[in-house]
């Protein structure tokens, strides 16, 4: 088995209910489980689907079954489908060595829509996130997904981007196999397109 650069490796996928967090974390979990890693995914769903902040904890180890909750400030990577949620996650799970992949498309919470609260500017958030992480990538995955045909593909674009960082042994073939077992052929092609687009967004130097 390929050695992980951290064992356990703690990945957080975050966003807003309805953005496809659960599918994304399961896809990534399946890809790693298929390679023999111990994977625990912690998540909650139910009320949180209704526009609330959602978070999946994906924990990977070559030796032990881990708990479904990452201890505070122990994340190695944060994949975020919504920029403000990135900040919320870093506040509790960030540390100077954490990596961040961030979709820049905001989803305003009710408090912001109604004008009770103000949403931070992307410029400001990008600056803060950069300061709070060791490495970070920003792009509008929702715009890319809409071009593919549905904004929901942002979750797969982000999974592709995670693969692009090379931090985890994610194998595109395993992704394709998992897709084929779950989706009809036309959906498989679109998901692969999303994955590859995301993969291409990461500048590997």
């Amino acid at each position, binding site marked *: 088995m390929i050695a992980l650069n951290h064992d356990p490796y703690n990945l957080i996928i975050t966003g*807003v*209910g*309805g953005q496809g967090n659960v599918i994304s974390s*399961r896809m990534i*979990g*399946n890809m790693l*489980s298929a390679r023999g890693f*111990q*994977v*625990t*995914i*912690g*998540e*909650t*769903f*139910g*009320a*949180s689907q*209704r*526009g*609330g*902040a959602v978070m999946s904890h994906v924990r990977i180890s070559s030796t032990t*079954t*881990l*708990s*479904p*909750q*990452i*201890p*505070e*400030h*122990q994340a190695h990577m944060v994949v975020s489908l919504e920029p*403000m*949620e990135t*900040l*919320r996650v*870093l*506040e509790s799970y*960030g*540390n*100077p060595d954490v990596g961040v992949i961030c979709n820049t*498309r905001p*989803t*305003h*919470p*009710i*408090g*912001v*829509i*109604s*004008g009770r*609260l*103000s*949403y931070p500017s992307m410029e400001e958030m990008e600056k*803060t996130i950069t*300061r*709070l992480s060791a490495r970070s990538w920003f792009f509008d995955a*929702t715009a890319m997904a*809409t071009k593919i045909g549905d*904004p929901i593909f942002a979750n797969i674009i982000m999974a592709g981007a995670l693969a692009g960082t090379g931090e985890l042994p994610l194998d595109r073939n395993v992704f394709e196999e998992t897709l084929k077992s779950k989706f009809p052929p036309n959906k498989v092609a679109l998901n692969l397109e999303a994955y590859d687009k995301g993969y291409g967004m990461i500048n590997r130097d």
Partner: protein
Amino acid sequence: MSPLTRGNPGETHLMMGNEAIVRGALEAGISVAAGYPGTPSSEIIETLAKISDDIYTEWSVNEKVALEVAAAASFAGLRSLAVMKQPGVNVAADFLMHLALSGVRGGMVIVAADDPGALSSINEGETRLYAKLMEIPMLEPGNFQEAREMTCWAFELSETLNMPVLLRTVTRLSHASGRVTLGKLPIPDRKAFFRFDGDMLDPMEGPIMTPPVGIKHQSQQKKLQQAAKLFEESPFNTYEGPESPELLIITTSICDLYSKEVVALLGVKDRVGVLKLGTTWPLPAQPVLSRLATTRNVLFVEEVQPFIEEAVKVLAAGSQLDLSSLTFYGKYSRHIPMAGEMNPERVTAALSTILRLESGPVSPVSKNYPGTSLPPIPPREISFCPGCPHRASFFSINTVLQLDNRQGFTCGDIGCYSMGMLPGGFFTLKTLHSMGSGSGLASGFGKLDKFGMDQPVVAVCGDSTFFHSAMPPLVNAIHNRSAFTLVILDNSGTAMTGFQPHPGLPVDTKGNQAPPIDIERVCRAMGATTRTCDPFDLKATQKQLLEFINGKEENQGGVKVLILKQACALSPKKRHTQSFEVAVDPDRCIGEACGCNRICTRVFACPGLIWDAENNRATINDVLCAGCGVCASVCPQNAIQRKEFP
């Protein structure tokens, strides 16, 4: 197909805790499974219905009936499963008490899913006390593999004892995923036949009932003693750590993983041992007492109530142990909080204090990490989805109650529409308790005119909740001449838990055709005045509701039922479809200058809208808008325009 039905013994798959329970039940060869949807338990029945045609699966009308349906299968010699979230156990409790006493025949397991931390609940109820109260054995899986193995073994145990067995899971196990190595699937071979002509006391051939109570209760106690003995040898109780630990953690369920992880993280493996109990009622004496004899300090890590803590203390008090040499830490000593779910931080805090660790309970990272001193991040309140009929319904209820101006109020109930208590639901709900209790409370409020109360009373309930437990209070209200308006928010499915069908729909659990029960006709047959409106038609809905609460209708006073029928925006039939293309005319929207108090964004506040502060006007969020077009009815300037899709 799913590895749940196809997977071969020895294969390992990533599975949700609930899927592992499904696999365990399949490996035990169950024939019948019944339940009522409730987070975090819903995926169990849902998955069984999807993957297996050999099993009869049923979304029952409520948890008590589910338990009865499953029990019937057991009485006929089959293995059966009943599934519910914790509050459902309260609903089923009356039958469960009698079932525990009468005993069962085919293996019968009740899966109860608790939600510590109330992540998807409006209470933090605890099922484990029921094992003690009902006097039945209980198992608590500590990880994904155990979820499969324990479920499978629970059926065997049930048949050994002729007792129903409780399997208690929690959200962080049921909804988390981990690796599970599969066991063997049997070939189903059981035939259903209910034997009743044997001796009254013959568990296998006699009639199944609780009398004679004295004899049956004694035999129940004997069976529990037998369970305790079996539990002493159970591989589900494990110990990891030094022979004589400075501190012994006694834990169960998912807390085992938190405990072991924190012990490793803090580097105290040589000082702390972890005794994990999987068979938690009746408590197996020997494994616990022999470990207590090796230490002077004990910490209990469990959620929600101090269940094991109390049981171990009782056990210790009745043993030969020198109690003066033992110090117990846990919920009673407040080293573990009495409320809320467990997590690594809480275990860290307890261990750091008890072991006097220098690092203290605060993670060394957080001391210097700038992320912990950020300006406040706007919270993300949960709210109704874009296109949700409930937003429109509550907007109307709220508007009408304000127009009526007699301080009328709305009693809430359980479902997505419970969010009617939040800003996104205009703070409409003023009471919120258990399933069906909105109607029961309204029935009571509606009788208080005798004592001077003249506030209009409204209750809401969903379509599934109506069948679950709103029908008896409605009967009660009509018969006792109470006066209130029940608004049934009929969105064509059990929406919050994932669109499970209910008796009002023309499909059954497996999606096959079934006779629907018409809610309006049921209410009318009971004697209520009924109307049905489309909640997206704000005008018609508000007019009807106003007439109802003003009592100007025929049959003045009495119980009125308004059915607001519109499918959920996320329902399979509506998802990805839009009725209207909605756009804001930038010339007509004049923002704050309008005098509308920005009703679309400030008041109606659908997440499909964006308030563009820079340009002082509302816009539509194209990614989120579901195209229901209701905001166009809300806008007094006709600035929000909707165009029907061809």
